[in-house]
């Protein structure tokens, strides 16, 4: 795929091709991730955004083999040319935490409450790089200085409960950086933090990326955060990438109606109090019974017959921008859907109310839920 040039400037260290994850549960197959393709170079940040259940987390956890045994991962993930899919658990141990490290949402849950933070960092250091305890302690203090924790010499003896949320997340980042990983995955790493702390942690991550050249995959539902800190953004819906572009290009020229809907639903600092948000009705599709065609078609105000019949490929693109849609919005507002080539949505396709104000629209919304319930 002819992705943009800036992404090809330096050779990608992570290449993901046609990655699929299927969970088998009670004889049903849940297709959590359906064919992910992307590349990531050193020093670059990729943001993955989407609703819960869109496959954001499953997609990155599969890179590290962090999924339960019921998950079947196919496709190809190459880290510095080395294939990761199908590696044995033992071989994965040398990748996990060493080459790819991960930061999770809740720092309190990622740390062991019965061990002081110094021991936890030293454990991570010595796991991949055997050394004497005293040397590891020196390295741990260095790491704490790197994540700008004040007075690291005393903090190292403290326990997680003695630290604030922001400090705990700094410790988690220090542990993640213990073996100098090539790829750092931040899965909603700042969601549980205050805006003030979030800004500090993001600034720290940018700083570390500039110094160490780490590639970062950032999963977030905060579109403002993704727009500010990522070089590229990938929008996922129902396990598929529906839009993937350079950050600037994506947000200044939105093509996929789903991305547009996401943006319309976010309150802005510039909105006037008591103004209404644009809302799309319906629910994400059942991943064990995906509809034919575009997965977003049942909720899409621009959907036509072709959308429900055939799935749009993620091909139509320019240099920086690819999207999967038959009727791209072309940077225009979503409401401007009444153009000649766009037909009205069939009633059976489900509800597409812009807002659920009137009772009539509400009834439509409810009936779409009804349909879902019957399935």
């Amino acid at each position, binding site marked *: 795929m002819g992705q943009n040039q800036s992404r090809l400037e330096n050779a990608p260290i992570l290449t993901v091709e046609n990655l699929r994850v299927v969970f088998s549960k009670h004889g049903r197959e849940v297709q959590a991730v359906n064919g992910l393709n992307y590349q990531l170079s050193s020093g670059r940040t990729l943001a993955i955004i989407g*609703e819960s259940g869109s496959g954001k987390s499953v997609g990155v956890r599969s890179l590290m083999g962090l999924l339960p045994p019921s998950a079947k991962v196919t496709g190809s993930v190459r880290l510095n040319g080395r294939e990761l899919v199908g590696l044995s658990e033992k071989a994965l141990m040398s990748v996990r935490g060493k080459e790819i490290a991960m930061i999770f949402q809740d720092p309190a849950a990622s740390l062991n409450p019965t061990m002081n933070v110094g021991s936890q960092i030293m454990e991570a250091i010595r796991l991949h790089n055997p050394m004497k305890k005293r040397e590891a302690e020196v390295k741990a203090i260095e790491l704490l200085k790197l994540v700008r924790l004040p007075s690291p010499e005393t903090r190292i003896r403290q326990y997680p409960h003695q630290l*604030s*949320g*922001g*400090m705990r997340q700094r410790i988690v980042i220090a542990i993640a950086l213990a073996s100098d990983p090539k790829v750092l995955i931040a899965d909603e790493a700042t969601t549980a933090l*205050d*805006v*003030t*702390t*979030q*800004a*500090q942690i*993001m*600034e720290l991550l*940018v700083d570390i990326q500039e110094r160490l050249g780490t590639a970062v995959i950032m999963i977030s*539902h*905060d*579109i*403002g*955060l993704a*727009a*500010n*800190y*990522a*070089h590229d953004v990938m929008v996922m819906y129902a396990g598929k990438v529906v839009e993937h572009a*350079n*950050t*600037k290009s994506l*947000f*200044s*020229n939105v093509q996929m109606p789903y991305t547009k*809907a*996401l*943006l*319309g*639903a*976010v*309150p*802005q*600092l510039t*909105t*006037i*109090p*008591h103004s*209404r*948000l*644009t*809302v*799309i009705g319906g629910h994400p599709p059942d991943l064990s019974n995906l509809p034919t065609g575009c997965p977003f078609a049942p909720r899409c105000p621009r959907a036509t017959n072709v959308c429900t019949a055939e799935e749009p490929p993620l091909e139509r693109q320019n240099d920086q921008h690819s999207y999967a849609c038959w009727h791209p919005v072309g940077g225009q507002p979503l409401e401007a859907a009444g153009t000649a080539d766009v037909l009205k949505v069939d009633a059976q396709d489900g509800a597409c109310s812009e*807002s*659920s*104000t009137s*009772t009539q629209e*509400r*009834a439509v*919304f*409810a009936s779409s*839920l*009804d349909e879902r*319930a019957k399935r």
Partner: protein
Amino acid sequence: MTGKAANPDAVNSGSAEDAKEPDTHGEMAREREPLLVVKDLVQEYSTRGPGGVKTGTVHALSGVSFELYPGETLGIVGETGSGKSTLARAVIQVEEPVSGTVEFRGKQMNGMSRKDLRAVRAEMQMVYQDPFGSLNPRWKVSDVISEPMLGHTDMSKQQRQERVEKLLEIVGLDPSIYCNRRPIELSGGQAQRVAIARAVALEPALIICDEAISSLDVLIQAQVLNLFEELRQEIGLAYLFIAHDLATVKQISDSVAVMHLGQLAEIGPAEAIYDAPRHPYTRALLDSIPILDVETGEAKRPVPLKGDPPSPLDPPSGCRFRTRCPLAEDICAEVEPIPTEVGDGSSRPHKVACHFPLEPGQMLPNRPARPAAAAATV
């Protein structure tokens, strides 16, 4: 309207009257009686060491005052530990405050008998963050919603069922499908709608939302926010809307209170707070938000505030924000600033507790914003 709580029969018939009430916006609200008056609220907790020995005092709320008018929304923002939830709990008298008063419709709530308190609480309801945590997993949706009617009114089973169906329609759920569901069969957004239906069941005048939409997905958040807005317009609800997301709070609020370590740093009309904040802390909070202009796709990177929030166990002397404030001087450590009206000509009061309030439009010094990642490297 005042006698509504005392007369449970009015609950059923009250809706038509309430709906006809004019929108209570802008200047009109000034002429009315405030719904809720909170004065100098103080709440403290003791921390205890081994053997129950008192080791310190957490100053959770220190002298918080505000007024809320019928049909209006007061948004409350602040960092973790700033006392937002403590304030909500003190207003509804779940925990009695150490000092200060809460008046609801002119009646003082502290020291009220349990019976009177029950009647008042029928008019103030809460919606919490985690809808599944606040719904009994073994109860059907219809049981959940009709329980407040069972406790506060003498409606018959038939009447309650009719009301449940009406409420489900109000919150946008089809009664024929959802009445007999249990919480596990609902999505997060649907469960939060059920929690809202329960809160609205007794036709309260005030709903306290404690991070009510924080755990929901963006698209569901928008639906629930729109629902709150509809309920405000249709049945004249007032809200105390607690959230950490400043953009969400602006969307829904008439006034916004910015809390810092148990005190009000600034309170004022929503537009003024966001467009021309006077307290350095409010400015710093706004500067911390990663901004995306959805029209142009321009991103604006946040400028982080240095330092950690001080501990409420041992708040700094004088102004509690001074340890992180770029404008702090000696006086800030010595004298505690009191909330003072800045008088920007709005119909709503705009008060700031700061010795050196910012001029409208003034930024904090020495804080260059970095360009967004994409702009910096492409």
